[in-house]
């Protein structure tokens, strides 16, 4: 489990988190959403031990990753959005990483590369951005860490690769693994992520499963705008109105519309889901 307790963090001239608390339980594929600059990437850096909390705690299985004990770091892998391109070939790269990650499985890596349709014997420098990304995703999954942090993993992937991405993530998710996907490309992962976390400056606005969201909010796709709705958005052919859901009627969550609803009704949402 990842436990973030009363955590403060800021860069030199820029405070990011003030007293936030948030847990990530194993067996889930979390979607981490938030506007630009709210600290999604920073949160992933804190969890992977690349940054140190100013105050409060960030614990992975009870240990602070910034202490950088190998026993803890071997359980965590982070693919950054602006990754450094590894030297040599993907296959050499995973061989270099293997000693640090005891569950690394090279055969699985080869299989993943086949599934993702990339050639792991070509040098990283010769691969396109999308191919590099797919190799990194294959590497990350084959390291079999309990915690996998992906920052904008679908950026740069072509359309078939996005489908493949969803399939390999669904395949490699299991009850012992915690996957966190931070993204703005909500549509790419809409049916993959659950629960959803929405971060704001200094606070967590929402952490809820799809089921909890539809228990409390009703997404009505109709022809008319509902002026009493928490949020309405025009879509081709009509409106989506998001309302309270006292009768517990099932509806389909559109994550983008959920996001806009949350941003427009911060206090209401915090109370509703708090």
């Amino acid at each position, binding site marked *: 489990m990842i436990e973030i307790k009363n955590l403060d963090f800021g860069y030199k001239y820029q405070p990011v988190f003030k007293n936030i608390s948030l847990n990530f339980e194993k067996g889930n*594929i979390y979607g981490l959403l938030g506007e630009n600059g709210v600290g999604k990437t920073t949160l992933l850096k804190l969890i992977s031990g690349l940054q140190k909390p100013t105050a409060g705690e960030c614990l992975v299985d009870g240990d602070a990753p910034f202490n950088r004990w190998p026993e803890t770091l071997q359980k965590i892998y982070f693919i950054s959005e602006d990754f450094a391109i590894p030297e040599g070939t993907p296959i050499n790269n995973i061989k270099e990483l293997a000693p640090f990650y005891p569950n690394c499985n090279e055969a699985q890596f080869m299989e993943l590369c086949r599934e993702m349709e990339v050639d792991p014997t070509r040098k990283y420098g010769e691969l396109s951005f999308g191919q590099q990304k797919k190799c990194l995703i294959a590497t990350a999954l084959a390291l079999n860490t309990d915690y996998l942090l992906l920052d904008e993993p679908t950026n740069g992937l072509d359309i078939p690769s996005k*489908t493949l*991405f*969803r*399939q390999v*993530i*669904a*395949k490699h*998710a299991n009850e012992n693994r915690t996957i966190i996907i931070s993204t703005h490309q909500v549509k790419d992962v809409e*049916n*993959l*992520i*659950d629960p959803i976390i929405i971060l704001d400056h200094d606070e967590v606005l929402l952490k809820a*499963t*799809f*089921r909890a969201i*539809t228990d409390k909010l009703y997404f009505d*796709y109709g022809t008319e705008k509902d002026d009493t709705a928490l949020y309405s958005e025009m879509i081709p052919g009509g409106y989506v109105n998001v309302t309270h859901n006292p009768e517990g009627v*099932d*509806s*389909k*969550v*559109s994550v983008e519309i959920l996001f806009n609803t949350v941003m427009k009704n911060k206090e209401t949402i915090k109370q509703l889901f708090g």
Partner: protein
Amino acid sequence: MEFNAHKPIYLQICDQLYGQILSGELKADDRLLSVRDLGIELGVNPNTIMRSYETMTASGIIYNKRGIGYFVAENAKDLVLNEMKNEFINNELPQVVKKMKLLGIGIDEINNLFK
């Protein structure tokens, strides 16, 4: 599978399986894909597939053999027919009726179409 914009995904997954039960592609006592395998095929969160299977189990359309998997129930076809009929009458028909009123189409006109 193309998901429709307005219906919860877990119900759309049920609909897909209902379609296969009605067409005979899935027969009584056939085993469904595991939660995991269907999740991989559709690129959908396993929790969502689980919810579809729970929903179908609750309505008796499929049953669970512990540790083995989910299977199509003996009377699944009748149950699915019933369920889809109810859905049509309660959810889809009112929309159609609304549209008929809007366009000024009477029931006789519809009857004539299907004679």
